[in-house]
């Protein structure tokens, strides 16, 4: 699947990258990313995840064709 990260997460991951292998749901994706880059773990814990411009819950089932956006807490304004 494709993963897009934003803001501070770009200090840990490429802005956009392919993640090979099966990832069942959002919770599993979070674990995979934390394992890939342990420094990002705390940040990932407070992120929201979105597919197709909609936020999705931790148990959201992911498909190989999905693009998942990892959304840190907002800091606009």
């Amino acid at each position, binding site marked *: 699947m494709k993963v897009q990260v*934003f*803001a*501070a997460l770009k*200090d840990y991951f490429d802005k956009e990258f392919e993640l090979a292998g099966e990832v069942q749901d959002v919770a599993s994706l979070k674990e995979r990313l934390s394992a890939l880059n342990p420094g990002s773990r705390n940040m990932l814990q*407070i*992120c*929201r995840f*979105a597919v197709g*411009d909609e*936020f999705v819950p931790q148990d959201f089932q992911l498909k190989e064709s999905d693009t998942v*956006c990892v*959304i*840190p*807490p*907002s*800091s*606009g*304004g």
Partner: protein
Amino acid sequence: MNHISAEPLDVVGLLAQSHHPQAGAIVLFSGEVRDNNMGRQVAYLDYESHESMANKMTAAILEEAKQKWPLNIAVAQHRTGKVGIGESAVVVITASPHRGEAYAANRYIIDRIKHEVPIWKCEYFTDGTRKWGGNCNCHDITGDANQHVYEFDELKK
């Protein structure tokens, strides 16, 4: 209207357009870049967004504000990219028959944008360092990234 703009916000232009024959009160908020934050000298800010989500979410917040208050006008735009000291990073304009509603709706819209809409600032300091910053940290209090503690609610206490 695109609520996310990579170009400088035309704050005075947006205000100049904001008239309505039934609106007795216009309130404008402009969030501008300060030359300091937490005691450090700021050179400029750089804003990033998830543009399509930010656009939809801002539109939804404006719609919700219109449901809550009788607004003749509700406009919001947020800047992305490099924003210099004194430049506007975000503008919100509300208009209503009486002033109470225009103030309340304006505050509601900016508070929700700041807490919820996927836009992030990176502060660049005059000493050459940078910091992704000012994140909404309501999850520390609420334990849920989707539950926020809004300033407009705190005002009522």
